[in-house]
């Protein structure tokens, strides 16, 4: 079962990437059961965020970026493939994390969120980022 598709058509010129990254976050935020979303760089810098006002964005960004790096580096140390998505469920909500070329996509959702649907949407979002940012060669 695949999740809802993100309704985005990315232009691939550099000048529009900033807007598209915000569009991606807004589309994730509009999904059913989703309370907020964010893209955070691996250094903890917030690229775009649509989160409830009760959430301290900078603190969450620091923790999720550290978590993303922890998942990546531990997989590398163990000689395993890096994580693609992760879901962490608590009493009052669920946090999703997905790795991408530019950083980590973070989604906060209700506890009863449809895991497959959000996972699918995150995969779509990562795919869009790969397409739009993939033509930039490393410096």
């Amino acid at each position, binding site marked *: 079962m695949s999740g809802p598709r993100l309704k985005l058509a990315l232009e691939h010129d550099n000048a529009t990437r900033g807007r598209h990254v915000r569009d991606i976050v807004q589309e994730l935020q509009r999904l059913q059961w989703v309370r907020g979303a964010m893209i955070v760089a691996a250094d903890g810098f917030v690229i775009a965020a649509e989160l409830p006002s009760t959430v301290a964005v900078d603190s*969450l960004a620091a923790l999720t970026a550290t978590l993303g790096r922890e998942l990546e580096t531990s997989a590398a140390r163990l000689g395993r493939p890096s994580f693609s998505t992760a879901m962490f469920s608590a009493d009052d*909500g669920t946090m999703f994390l997905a790795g991408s070329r530019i950083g980590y996509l973070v989604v906060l959702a209700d506890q009863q969120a449809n895991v497959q649907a959000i996972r699918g949407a995150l995969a779509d979002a990562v795919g869009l980022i790969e397409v739009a940012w993939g033509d*930039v060669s490393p410096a």
Partner: protein
Amino acid sequence: MPLLRRLWRPAAHRAPLTVAEALRRAERHRQEGRYAEAGALVMRALELDGDNLHAHLLAAYLHAARRATAPAKAEFGWVLGHDANHARALLGLARVALEEGDDATCDELLCRALRFYPDFPEAAALLDALRADELQTPPAVPPALRVDRLRLPGTGRALIVGGADGGLIAAQPATNDASHVSEALARALRLATAALRRCGLGPLHRAIIEDERDAVFTRTDGNLIVSLALPRATDPPQGLLDVNRLWSATLHELRLAAASPPIAQRATPVSTPAADPTRRVS
């Protein structure tokens, strides 16, 4: 040809830039996840002013954003060499230390940052997560868990039972790296717990971590961690059912182990003393 060559020159070299302008543009690119272009502009700025602290800090951020830990560490170090109490550089270096598993250095750097800048939410959040690690106390009595009685589902690839401190209680199959997997999982779950708490969502109970091959379904109550690796294609509700069943079975076995004589033989290699047998099913 000279015209084409001029047109194809990298954007950073196209126009004469001041250091300030190059850094301003680099910041904008960074905000858009355009790290390569931002990096080229920072390089340009450093060509013009090799001692520019802001440029070195930005270079450190960009290396970290591109997961290049060693050059990020060098650049953060350069900044601290010129401003020993630079809060952002201290935080950056602390995160590098955490990535390298050097918790003591991470703690020291975060404390330094907070000593000079007490209102520094990122540093405070990371320090809280780190100190939560330290609160995980190893258990006094190692229960001898009969892991052979825990039946993996047909598609099950691996089972890890560990304490929240990362200590391995049992593994199936008993591979050489099982203790490292247990440690890594515990570290990740502690960071996730800290993030969930920061969002006011409460304590972590379940996790699913996927890579291109496996989906690792995990159940925890903050003391005990039971994780089951299944094929990635596994339906999440099914995987969660399977790990729930193993969670209950593990608790049952731990109760039996705790009630049995301390010399009870272990069924599988067990590396570390286990968590205080957890009885609460959350």
